[in-house]
């Protein structure tokens, strides 16, 4: 893991023209007649924590799905690390360094915590079928190397005690944490977190917030997160983009966004 420490401080980033990691230009996505995303543009700077917020059904998860190639927008383009893409399969996004967690925990239920996190290393393992068959020599060596990486992540997220437990048996909060571990095992450059704190109690939220900040801080991972807890969003994020009914209604620092009248209307409702 590259431990290039990057200050998550907002001010300094903004001052010296930050490097754009992901640029979304005029993206529109519809399913049949339903417009999930309408002409949305925003960018994500390298090293920042970018929050995507909005009421239910605003198109936040669809936005993440577009970013990692699961949905293909009808209009617009996405530039990741200077490379503009059109149609692509999700695994390509994974190879480019985009990892994510899911709103409804999408762990591999039949596998243990350890195997789940090891599965995040899939792309980094290259020993061929023949060596895999023998599980000997290079294959074993590779397996052990990656196991060491995975153990580092397990230590980092403090889940040593559930290493061997099938994930299906874990409580919800821990499942979320294992999912984060699995995404981290991919050593992503851009980490997408879909409601990492949904359904958690205060203590669990605090733990998770600390992990997110640590990941951003220690590994320099750029993070885009969807979250409903405004307190968390205001504390964690560098910049916030607000979606409503598939449209972008605000974009800026937490302070700017929270004083924006459109945002307040979207959240509190307004007489049309």
């Amino acid at each position, binding site marked *: 893991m590259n431990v290039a420490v990057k200050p998550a401080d907002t001010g300094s980033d903004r001052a010296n023209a930050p490097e754009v990691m992901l640029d979304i230009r005029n993206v529109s996505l519809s399913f049949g007649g339903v417009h999930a995303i309408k002409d949305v543009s925003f960018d994500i700077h390298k090293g920042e924590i970018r929050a995507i917020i909005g009421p239910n059904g605003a198109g936040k998860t669809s936005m993440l799905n577009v970013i*990692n190639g699961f949905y293909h927008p009808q209009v617009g383009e996405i530039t990741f690390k200077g490379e503009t893409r059109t149609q692509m399969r999700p695994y390509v996004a994974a190879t480019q360094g985009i990892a994510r967690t899911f709103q409804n925990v999408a762990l591999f239920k039949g596998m243990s915590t350890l195997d789940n996190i090891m599965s995040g290393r899939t792309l980094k393992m290259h020993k061929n079928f023949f060596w895999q068959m023998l599980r000997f020599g290079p294959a074993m060596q590779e397996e052990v190397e990656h196991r060491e990486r995975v153990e580092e992540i397990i230590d980092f997220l403090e889940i040593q005690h559930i290493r061997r437990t099938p994930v299906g048996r874990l409580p919800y909060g821990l499942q979320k944490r294992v999912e984060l571990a699995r995404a981290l095992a991919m050593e992503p450059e851009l980490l997408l977190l879909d409601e990492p704190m949904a359904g958690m109690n205060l203590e669990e939220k605090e733990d998770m917030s600390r992990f997110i900040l640590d990941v951003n801080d220690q590994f320099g991972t750029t993070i885009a997160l969807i979250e409903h807890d405004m307190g968390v969003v205001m504390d964690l994020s560098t910049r916030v983009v607000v979606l409503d009914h598939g449209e972008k209604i605000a974009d800026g620092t937490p302070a700017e966004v929270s004083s924006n009248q459109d945002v307040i209307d979207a959240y509190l409702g307004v007489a049309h």
Partner: protein
Amino acid sequence: MFYREVGQFKTNYTADSQVFPILQDKIGIIAMLVIAYVVIPAAGNDFFITTVMIPFLVFSLATIGLNILVGYTGQLSLGTGAFMGVGAYSCYKLTTFFPDVNIIIMVLLSGFFAAGVGIIFGLPSLRIKGFYLAVTTLAAQFFLEWAFIRIPWLYNYNDSGAIEVPQREGFGVVLTGAAAEPVTRYLVVLSIVVAMTWVASNLIRGRIGRSWMMIRDMDIAAELMGVRPLYAKLSAFAVSSFYCGVAGAMFVFFWLGAAEVESFDINHSFLFLFMAIIGGLGSLIGCFMGAAFIWILPIIIRALPDAMGLDVNAATVEHINFMIIGGMIIFFLIVEPHGLARLWQIAKEKLRTWPFPYS
């Protein structure tokens, strides 16, 4: 009390990722191998070896093949019988063309033909899932059955339409045909099954096995994490069919001696599915348990009326067999959907703390 891992510390990850990390398990597996390789050949009679052991091992291997697909990759297949048939017929053709080559090599090579056919019929799995896939494997089943009848080249234009196993040698010993000793055939089958089980367990614990299980548990998440469904699914189909093909070739060459298309019909496909379910989907040891259960239980049921001095006709016993197997399937699905392997695991966990469950 006896089955404890206390004091057995692992100091590196290699030791930690063994199949049998606990000493007592290692002793257990070695004991099993000694029994299989030494005790059974020495003490077992021909009936036991040919009627019980050889088919049990062959079926275990076929079940492993099916389990790789259904249990580990989550792709339901009802075409196991036909894939075994591909193995059997290609082995027959191979040994017809190259009569002097060691038959064991031919048996293993025939697995590749089955793998090829498996890949072709696995292609739809890229677009469809679940029952839909089950139907495409039925297409494989019926199409291949038809091919085994309608392409006389496959059975060398025999009038009988059957493949009859010729006498073949390997390592200077007669291995197939009427002249082959049951014990010899048994040892060949045993060695192949042991080796291939070992390979299967390696594959499953490594990157490839994990990518299969990722597809099984949540295919979308797997793809978002960099697993290419094309490779994962087709490799599962290939490996699975390879195992089934080798099992099919052994089925005919080391056990039946002659086979027609009926040996590979849909009922056999179901039988292996049952073995996999009862043994436990997603478990290698379960394959052996399931095969033992489904193969050996009927043998016992058949022998029971005689042993008890009852005069029940053979057909009736067969019918009762069907009912018992069907009933057992339902029973297992209700009581323990994860099969015998899960029961075995629970028993082991209990044993670890026995007799002090709270210590």
